[in-house]
C-alpha cells in the first residue's frame, strides 16, 4: 500500500473533526472522498499533506510515517484563489513549483504553458490571478499541480467553480493523468463525479467524520461522459453513495 491512514483523529479546540479514520490507497489508484459539509474532508487532506499532525493515529506514506510535508506531493486547495500568488502572472504561478524539479527557466515556462493549455487556459498565460474569474483561477491551480507531476496528488473540491461542460472536461483530464501512474485523492461534493472518476469511493459520516463505506467502483478503466454514466453499475453505485451521504443505510455491504 502506498498510503495508509490508521485510526486518524483530529480536534480543533474541543471540536472533534475526524475520528478513527482508516483508509488505504494503492499506488496509481484514484480514491474519491465524499461526505457532508464540515465532516473533516479538508482536515483529512491536511493530515496527509503533513500540514497538520493528527491528534490521534498516523498516516504512513511508502512505509514511513508522515510528520512533515512529504516529497513529491501537490495539493489543489479548496481555497484555490488564496493559494495563487497575486504578484505573479498565471504562467509564473504554474512554473514556480517546477524550480523544485531543477528545470531550467525555458523548460519551466514551456511546461507551464502546456499545462495551462490542458485546462483550457492557453490565452491567459500573461494575465494575473486577480484578473481571472473564480473558475479560471481554479483551473490555474489545477494546472499548477498537474505541471508538477507529483507522485501523490490531493485535490479538495477542485471543480466546484467551473461550468458543467468544463467540469466534464477536467474530470476526463484527471482520468487521463491518472493513467500516467499518479496516485490521486479527490474530495468532491458531486456524487456522480466521485463514481465517474474514482477507482474507489470512500464515504465519510457527518462530523466527527469517520469512514462509513469504502466502495469499489467496478467500471471499465476507459470511461466517457455519456456511455459510462448510463451503465447500470454506474447508476446503481451513485444511488448507493447518495443514500450513504444522506445518512441512510447501505443497500448492500460492499468492501
Amino acid at each position, binding site marked *: 500500500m502506498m498510503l495508509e491512514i490508521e485510526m486518524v483523529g483530529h480536534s480543533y479546540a474541543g471540536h472533534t473533526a475526524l475520528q478513527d479514520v482508516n483508509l488505504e490507497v494503492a499506488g496509481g489508484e484514484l480514491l474519491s472522498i465524499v461526505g457532508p459539509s464540515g465532516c473533516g474532508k479538508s482536515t483529512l487532506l491536511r493530515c496527509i499533506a503533513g500540514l497538520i499532525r493528527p491528534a490521534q493515529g498516523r498516516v504512513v506514506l511508502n512505509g514511513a510515517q508522515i510528520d512533515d510535508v512529504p516529497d513529491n506531493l*501537490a*495539493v489543489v486547495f479548496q481555497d484555490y484563489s488564496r493559494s495563487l500568488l497575486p504578484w505573479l502572472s498565471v504562467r509564473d504561478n504554474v512554473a*514556480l*513549483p517546477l524550480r523544485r524539479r531543477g528545470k531550467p527557466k525555458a523548460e519551466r515556462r514551456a511546461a507551464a504553458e502546456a499545462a495551462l493549455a490542458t485546462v483550457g487556459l492557453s490565452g491567459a498565460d500573461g494575465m494575473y490571478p486577480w484578473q481571472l474569474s473564480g473558475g479560471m483561477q481554479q483551473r490555474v491551480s489545477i494546472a499548477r499541480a498537474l505541471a508538477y507531476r507529483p507522485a501523490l496528488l490531493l485535490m479538495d473540491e477542485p471543480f466546484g467553480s467551473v461550468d458543467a461542460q468544463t467540469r466534464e472536461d477536467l474530470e476526463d483530464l484527471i482520468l487521463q493523468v491518472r493513467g500516467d501512474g499518479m496516485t490521486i485523492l479527490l474530495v468532491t461534493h458531486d456524487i456522480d463525479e466521485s463514481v465517474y472518476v474514482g477507482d474507489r469511493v470512500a464515504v465519510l459520516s457527518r462530523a466527527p467524520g469517520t469512514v462509513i463505506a469504502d466502495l469499489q467502483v467496478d467500471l471499465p478503466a476507459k470511461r466517457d461522459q455519456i456511455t459510462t454514466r448510463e451503465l447500470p453499475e454506474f447508476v446503481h453505485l451513485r444511488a448507493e453513495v447518495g443514500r450513504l451521504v444522506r445518512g441512510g443505510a447501505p443497500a448492500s455491504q460492499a468492501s
Partner: protein
Amino acid sequence: MTSRNPASRRPSRIGKWLRGLAGLVVLGLLSEILGRAGIVHRDFLPPASTILGRAVSLAGDGYFLTNLWSTIKAWAIGLAIAVGGGVPVGLLLGSVPVLNTAVRAVVEFLRPIPSVALIPLVSLILGSGQTTEVTLIVYAAAWPVLFNTIYGLQDVDPVAKETMRTFGFGRLAVIWRVSLPSAAPFIATGVRLAAAIALILAVGTEILSGFGQGLGTFIAQAQQSIDGTKDVLAGTVWTGALGLLVNVVLVQGERRLFRWHHAQTGGRS
C-alpha cells in the same frame, strides 16, 4: 478598477493637482498682499515673490548647493541603513514569534520617545557631525520600516504559504517567495513614512546642532544674519520641495510596483 462609480464622484488625478495648485496660488497671493501692503513687516514675512525668487536663485548658489547636497547625502545614507536593517530585523521578528515577544518590551519602551528629543543626547555622545545626524535618522526611520514589515508579515495568507510548503519549498524559500513579496506593499508604505521622518531628523539635527553642513545649518545661520528672513524662508521652501518630491516619487513607484495589491484591496491602502 479605476472606473468604479465612487471614483467618478471623486476628482480625477489632474483635478486633484489643480486644486492643490489653486491652494498654493491663494496662499502665495495672500502673503504677497500682506507683505506688499505693509500689513506684516517685510522683515518678518517677505512677499511670496521675493521668497520664491530667492529660492530659485539659490539653485545657482554654490554655498547653498553644498549644504543641500550634504542634507540629501545624510538623508539617503540614513534611510538606506534604516531600510537595510529594518526589513531583515522585521522579517526575523515577524517569522519567529518567540523573538517577537521577547523584544516587544524593549520596543514598547523605546517607541514613544520622540526621536527629535534624542538630538541633544546623541549630539552629546557623538559630537555634532554627520555621524550624529545619520545615527538619529537611522534610529527614527527604522521604526516605521520595522513595524510595517512585521505588520505585513501578519497579513500574509496562510493558504499561500501552505501551498508553497506542500510543493516542497523550505522555510526560508517560503519567506523569500511568499512572505516577503506579500508584505512588500506594507514595507513600501513604511519606507515612504521613513523617508519623511528621515528628512525631519536630518534638517532638525542640523538646525539644533548649530554647525556642520546642511539645509538646516543654512536655515539656522540665515536666522542669525541681518535680513536673513528671506533666506530662512527660501531654505524652508527647498526643504518642503524636497519632501514633496520624495513623496511623489515613492507613491508613483508603489502604484506601479504593487498594482496587484491595489487591485485586490480595491485601492484602499
